[in-house]
């Protein structure tokens, strides 16, 4: 069976103290350590993976995925005509990845021409980033390949300093989507679960369901009280 994947099988720590109110009535809870795993270096990522997509599959822009609060994984696989168009007229083109933090250029990475992905490490948690791929010719001209990526915001990695409290009352009966609640399909036929020892379950012969007052008829009680 696959091993459990939840974090928590980690180094021993003292039992955390129970939550306690801190500033202005806010409670806090000790959360698990969130130190990111060692982020891969960019050099680790230029080998092609074990599955290659056909060349007609391609994207118009690089894609950013959040690995941890200071690391983004950027990948791209532009359609061939986009790559050809960008390279047209450039001599000995090289590949550049530009990463922007908000409206500002954060860094430019030069990568092998065949690269299709990279990890960008040492970023600032909580900030918004975008990326674009360019080709740089020997004469210094650059030309973008496709469009800039969608914006990705890194998780903050700490509790928020915003202390505004806005409450919402949302009765259980009120739909979330503003649309009628989808109806359930017809119930599958359940075989009866009968046993002289066990409590009668709803599908047992002669048993009454919860709405019929199962508590009085010997059925299990809800934990609600």
């Amino acid at each position: 069976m696959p091993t459990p994947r939840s974090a928590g099988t980690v180094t021993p720590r003292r039992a955390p103290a129970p939550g306690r109110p801190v500033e202005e009535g806010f409670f806090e809870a000790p959360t698990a350590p969130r130190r990111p795993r060692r982020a891969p270096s960019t050099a680790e990522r230029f080998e092609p993976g074990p599955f290659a997509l056909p060349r007609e599959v391609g994207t118009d822009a690089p894609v950013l995925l959040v690995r941890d609060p200071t690391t983004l994984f950027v990948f791209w696989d532009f359609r061939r005509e986009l790559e050809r168009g960008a390279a047209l007229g450039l001599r000995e083109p090289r590949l550049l990845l530009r990463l922007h933090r908000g409206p500002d250029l954060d860094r430019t990475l030069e990568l092998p021409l065949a690269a299709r992905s990279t990890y960008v490490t040492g970023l600032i948690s909580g900030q918004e980033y975008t990326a674009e791929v360019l080709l740089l010719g020997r004469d210094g001209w650059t030309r973008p390949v496709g469009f800039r990526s969608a914006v990705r915001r890194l998780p903050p990695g700490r509790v928020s300093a915003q202390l505004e409290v806005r409450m919402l009352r949302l009765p259980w009966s009120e739909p979330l989507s503003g649309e009628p609640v989808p109806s359930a399909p017809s119930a599958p036929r359940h075989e009866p679960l009968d046993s002289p020892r066990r409590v009668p379950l709803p599908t047992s012969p002669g048993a009454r369901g919860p709405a019929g007052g199962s508590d009085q008829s010997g059925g299990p009680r809800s934990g609600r009280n």
Partner: protein
Amino acid sequence: MRRPRGALLLVLHAHLPYVRHPDDEDHLEEEWLREAVLECYLPLLDLLERLADDRVPVRLTLSLTPTLVAMLEDPLLRGRIGRRIERQQALAEREVRRTRDDPSLHAVARFYQERLARLARLWTDRYRGELVPAFAALRDHGLIELLASGATHGFLPLLRSSPQAVRAQVAVGASEHARALGRRASGFWLPECGYYPGLDRVLADEELRFTFLDAHGLADAEPRPLLSVHAPAFTPAGVAVYARDPEASEQVWSAEVGYPADPVYRDFYRDVGWDLPEDALVPMVGPGRPRRATGFKYHRITGRGMDKAVWEPEPAFARARAHARHFVSRVKERTGALVERMERDPLVVAPYDAELFGHWWFEGPAFLEAVFREAAAAGLAVVTPGDDLQAWPEAQVVSPVESSWGEHGHASMWLDPVNDWIPQALHGCAQLLAPFARLQRETGIEGRALVQAFRELLLAQSSDFAFILRSGTVTAYARARVQSHLSAFLELVRAVRTRTVDPLRLQSLERRDALFPALTLSQFRE
């Protein structure tokens, strides 16, 4: 409105990836299902019914993932589970004979023999090999609240570059739950607790009213949640998010300081499958098959290394009850300290993989049963999210942050140089499928081929395979599974494009990957 009281919200997440190998009854990975049924799901149903018989209040929150439900419904796999029980019972008989000159081992062998006889009666007589209706019946009777989950347990933060893929995981997961269990779920278990801002809208569109995050997913939300992880908050889309309690997690999960590390408990790793001569294992593992675990384990944890003391059932189960008493007393103590300062019930939210209880921690089901008994005795309420939200419909509105319950709380288990080719390939395949979904081509053999391609893409999205590649266990299997589903996907899409769908090949894929009978291409939409 009643006065607040402390409450425990206990959640089990029951999940296995789709491991079905029709051509090989003794397939090693298919064994995961049989182990989980015998060691986890049957004991869980058994303990829930026993508690109900004893009039102990039970409110358990339980997710059953669509891949697990599909396997539990599968007649081929159900038949194999029945035969596995028979083989286990035959091995038990031989073990009772083999150990007759060693009283301590013999007592354990007899324990297994009796346990297997009980499990056989439950499987055959009580549930008739159908566990899905049994869980639905317990839900209908008010013992459990069932949650839906992602169709194939896709890790949604890494699928978000393809909104259709995220929506499909949620929509197919919700509709499969309703199909198999007869009613739509109100809550959704996010695979790996993987969340990103905006995912709440997708859940709300499916009328999924609540979900679960790891502690920092809520604790780091903006604005800061007033009650931290001790109460749910509403997302901007109105979905209630509950956060995992760090202490309750560590008490059960931690390999170092958690309850399961107690040396009196049964050791997971030492098994007669590694100790007995190979010919003695043939009836269990099949001829010419490599050794494997059999479930017959005679030793307790004792310490590191192979020199281990013999396991004794009674002291081990007594320790599980003592640990349950401690667990409940800590929840009561902690919520008791909060109750005077909160205007709603303070909660301890304790989610665990269901397979921890019985498989990894053999005495785990006894612990769970004792938690309910001890909570009842101590006057500690055990509630589900539905109970909680109906009693306390008001909560703070916050925006939870991108997070997971994996190592270090983010995506590094599923996004690493060993497995980052997977999200790239999944993104490309989603791009390929999208135009067909927009055209709504669902009829005829090409429509069938596209639906099967969609099924293969969903299977390739399973978070389990990327996790295995990163954790370094059965990596060859995981890699082959992802490659196989992606290859089948591309093959089918190419065949549709060139109008060369081979009916026999299509039928063979439909038989191999035979889940989600109601799947439609319209579920792959933005």
